[in-house]
């Protein structure tokens, strides 16, 4: 048995039957990281020694009959923009290269309370700005299905680590598709929860009105298990919503009979790769076979959403990233005359090109003379997008689209053309604009063997619905049993 092939719910079962120990599981992952990390380069900070020590500690507690929790001893990987006390949180930026979090994010605290063991911090686009993980200051993460291709982004390290079996599951964050798109590129499951379901306390802010933390997992059941842990109101995040706790695992009924699924034709038009389209059409047929009612609708919001997204996200980023000033906890330039020069030189040297581009764009759209034409208009379009979704959800339970217009592209292919890179987010951003939940699950591979992702969008706080619809497809198609990453182009 290859331990690292197992899902978290399978690991849990084997832990409870005493077939496996925490130490054995952790050791298997540490060995796997040793083997695959040189090729994939998913980690910014690896915590393999600490993880093994923690595993031994937990095994002792289990032996002594102490209560340690159902998930005790399960390892995890954490995106490097989520604070972890005493451990570096770099956001894959030179600006935070040496930043050690003084406190835990709420989600980290929740993992610790469950005795879940961190294997390390995972690579990302710098400050989560990008769709390929190429803007990381430290390294370029490779796609485990083909090492010459990007893993997607910005949670590319998280998705690649899960796909390469270097962690059983991971946390990512999603501002415009940063969980779903890399999940799609790497053939794993990525869930962006409803805005406000998961606390953002301790998540380094990119665009505060759009950011959400969510799970990247091997299958849908694991996604539900991890969501059960991280969801919930937090007084430290005033945008987190106080509502009754749900059990997302119980929502997995493996039944979509009578479920109403809408397919917006605009998401299958120009720019969507043919093989992606064909694969999604097959998935739609599958849902019909399974008893769902599928109808084509018009939802002409994709382009407006994308433009709105880049205006709002950059505006919020230009303000949020003002705190990185070279004074308290960031990179500081070595030579300066006065305070203003510390700010300017530290920021110019500490931020990479894409981050600077977005700060400048954000400052521009907020500056007097352009505020009304861009920022205010974008906020109105945000209302329009939300209204259009509301209309659709009056009639339908779920909206089905591709996650990304293409499968994973080559490393370096789009890095010189920012606009082209932005256009790759066309299917995912509207979900953040409206604050909805969305999940990406694999639905096939293209002729080059690269995974294709299907996105299922739900109404606010209807994670149970999209998880069940995703689960039912997964159980009927068994993607993981038929397709596995092959590390093409690597040293065999």
């Amino acid at each position: 048995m290859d331990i690292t092939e197992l899902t978290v719910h399978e690991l849990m079962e084997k832990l409870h039957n005493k077939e496996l120990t925490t130490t054995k599981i952790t050791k298997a992952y540490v060995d796997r990281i040793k083997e695959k990390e040189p090729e994939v380069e998913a980690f910014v900070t690896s915590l393999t020694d600490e993880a093994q020590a923690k595993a031994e500690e937990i095994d002792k507690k289990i032996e002594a009959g102490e209560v340690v929790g159902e998930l005790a001893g399960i390892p995890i990987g954490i995106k490097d923009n989520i604070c972890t006390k005493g451990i570096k949180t770099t956001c894959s930026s030179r600006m935070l290269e040496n930043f050690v979090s003084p406190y835990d994010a709420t989600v980290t605290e929740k993992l610790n309370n469950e005795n879940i063991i961190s294997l390390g911090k995972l690579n990302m686009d710098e400050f989560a700005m990008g769709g390929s993980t190429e803007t990381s200051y430290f390294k370029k993460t490779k796609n485990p299905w083909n090492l010459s291709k990007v893993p997607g982004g910005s949670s590319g390290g998280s998705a690649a680590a899960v796909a390469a079996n270097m962690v059983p599951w991971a946390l990512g964050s999603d501002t415009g598709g940063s969980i779903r798109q890399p999940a799609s590129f790497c053939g794993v499951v990525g869930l962006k929860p409803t805005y406000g379901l998961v606390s953002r306390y301790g998540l380094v802010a990119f665009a505060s009105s759009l950011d959400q933390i969510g799970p990247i997992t091997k299958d849908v059941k694991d996604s539900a298990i991890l969501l059960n842990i991280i969801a919930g109101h937090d007084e430290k995040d005033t945008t987190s919503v106080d509502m009754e706790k749900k059990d997302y695992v119980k929502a997995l009924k493996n039944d979509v009979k009578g479920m109403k699924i809408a397919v917006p034709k605009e998401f299958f038009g120009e720019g969507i790769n043919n093989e992606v389209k064909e694969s999604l059409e097959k998935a739609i047929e599958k849902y019909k076979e399974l008893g769902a009612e599928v109808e084509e609708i018009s939802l002409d919001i994709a382009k407006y959403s994308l433009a709105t997204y880049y205006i709002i996200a950059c505006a919020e980023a230009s303000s949020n990233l003002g705190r990185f000033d070279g004074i308290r906890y960031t990179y500081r330039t070595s030579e300066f005359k006065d305070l203003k020069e510390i700010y300017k030189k530290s920021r110019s040297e500490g931020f990479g090109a894409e981050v600077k581009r977005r700060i400048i764009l954000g400052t521009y759209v907020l500056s007097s003379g352009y505020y009304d034409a861009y920022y205010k208009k974008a906020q109105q379009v945000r209302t329009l997008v939300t209204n259009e979704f509301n209309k659709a959800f009056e009639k339908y339970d779920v909206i089905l689209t591709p996650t990304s217009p293409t499968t994973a592209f080559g490393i370096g292919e789009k890095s010189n053309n920012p606009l082209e890179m932005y256009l790759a987010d066309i299917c995912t951003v509207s979900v953040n604009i409206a604050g909805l939940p969305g999940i990406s699950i694999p639905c096939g591979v293209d002729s080059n063997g690269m995974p294709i992702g299907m996105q299922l969008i739900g109404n606010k706080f209807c994670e149970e619905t999209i998880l069940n619809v995703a689960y039912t497809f997964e159980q009927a198609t068994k993607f993981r049993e038929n397709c596995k990453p092959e590390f093409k182009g690597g040293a065999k």
Partner: protein
Amino acid sequence: MQVSKEELLHIANLARLNIDENEVDNYLKNLEDILNFANIVNKANVEGLDITIGANEAKNIFRKDEIKMFEDNEALLQNAINPEQNMFKIPKVIN
């Protein structure tokens, strides 16, 4: 949407960023491409629509104004560059 070099440098200064002379053209081109695309928002029919400022219902969340001490000064200051007597050190601001 045409952005001038002066405008770009002014915006960069507001954002406390330096742009090297040899980067100016590239920034201008990228900015122009992106703004031209972003202009789509001006074609949307938003007449009579309110603005949305957050993803959820905008309402105030109140709490008592109580001081909560963060005790771990050491953890905070471990990230500071040359701290002195538990303080951050910066160059002289007023001459």
